[in-house]
């Protein structure tokens, strides 16, 4: 049978591969995953890409695909959630409480705050929302170094080029050259969700099955290990 083609946000790579492996062990079906930025994947699906399942890192891009009629109606659901964390270079930084009183400029001490693109990449957008709602943004905005994806943002901190960074909790778990200083309060930014859906082109029952499997308990063992949360 044809493998199930999954277009997934790059932030999910690794964990999603293990989920797919688990599914294959269970069903014998193969999954082929194309990782790229959510924007690129969404545009490709709208241009007729042969994808069966789309997992986006951005609600907006999922909306955009839905609006153009390229999703199979009724299959969309919010799959995963994660948190936004403040990280620092080094394995043993002291934790802080993230609230409006946090002396972020003091923590930066002239260094850089590494984030994803604050106008474009989801983690960056969430990060700015959080800083703004806490009233910390204006003080640190000039120090923000923006990367085009969250992995690069993480790498700047890991290499010590940037003192602090804001990334997903799911990204921070796998990097031992950084330590998590704290988690942003859930109310400081819009909920971070990864929606998933079948595309309008998806024909095979296997695709439906895989989408279902993504939310199964078996999958959640893997998701949780990778730092993701179930939606409340």
């Amino acid at each position: 049978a044809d493998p199930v083609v999954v277009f997934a946000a790059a932030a999910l790579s690794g964990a999603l591969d293990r989920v797919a492996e688990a599914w294959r062990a269970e069903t014998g079906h193969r999954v082929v995953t194309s990782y790229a930025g959510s924007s690129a994947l969404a545009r490709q699906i709208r241009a007729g890409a042969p994808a069966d399942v789309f997992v986006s890192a951005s609600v907006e891009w999922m909306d955009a695909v839905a609006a153009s009629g390229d999703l199979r109606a009724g299959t969309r659901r919010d799959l995963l959630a994660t948190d936004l964390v403040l990280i620092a270079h080094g394995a043993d930084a002291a934790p802080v409480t993230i609230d409006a009183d946090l002396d972020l400029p003091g923590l930066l001490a002239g260094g850089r705050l590494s984030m994803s693109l604050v106008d474009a990449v989801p983690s960056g957008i969430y990060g700015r929302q959080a800083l703004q709602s806490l009233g910390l943004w204006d003080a640190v905005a000039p120090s923000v170094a923006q990367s085009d994806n969250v992995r690069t943002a993480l790498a700047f901190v890991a290499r010590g080029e940037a003192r602090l960074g804001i990334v997903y909790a799911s990204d921070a778990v796998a990097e031992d050259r950084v330590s998590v200083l704290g988690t942003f309060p859930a109310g400081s930014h819009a909920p971070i969700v990864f929606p998933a859906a079948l595309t309008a082109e998806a024909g095979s029952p296997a695709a439906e099955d895989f989408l279902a499997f993504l939310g199964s308990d078996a999958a959640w063992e893997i998701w949780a290990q990778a730092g993701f949360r179930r939606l409340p």
Partner: protein
Amino acid sequence: MIGADWLGPAEWEAVRLSLRVAFWATLASLPLGVLTAYALARWAFPGKTLLNGLVHLPLILPPVVTGYLLLIALGRRGPVGQVLEAWFGIVLAFRWTGAAVAAAVMAFPLMVRVIRLAIEAVDPKLEAAAATLGASRAWVFATITLPLIAPGIVAGAILAFAKAIGEFGATITFVSNIPGQTQTVPSAIHAALQVPGGEDAAARLVIVAIVIAVGALALSELVARRVARRVAGA
């Protein structure tokens, strides 16, 4: 020593695909590259500046934009893509052929620039001499100009090949990153870098890319030296 299992099957697949994509991208764009270079070097025609700008466009624009434009034009729902599919049964989107097209487009300015420079360096007196001996413009081109610019063509081709091996932004935007179908080595490297702890896999692929490219370079140097010696006439 390093065994075949040093790379996973998906990675080997990416290597094979990259080679195929780069080879065809280079080979298929070469005739058009030579023609374009010749037109820019030798002809005067309205719209020459435009053509020149158009050729350079993929160099100037971020690859993502080029890929996006390709997707809009050549995708299954794009105007050109629909024509290609309906009339010739050719589908580029999300196939390796599309990856080759993206690589060719991205490499085209390099190829044209180099070949054009070679054409401009040909002594028109030799072409004139050939004409007096009865060779028409086409024959002069085939028997004098073309052999004399052979070193330039080799250089242009190798540059295009290297670029095609390394192309990533336009490719992933146009044909996505589907393992076994459109995942080239750079896409695979990129994907590997997204995985926490994926640096090792990325490094292995980087080494593979380097080996391929250095091999191609060395080969091209050999060819170029031979060709140059022929052309120098010694």
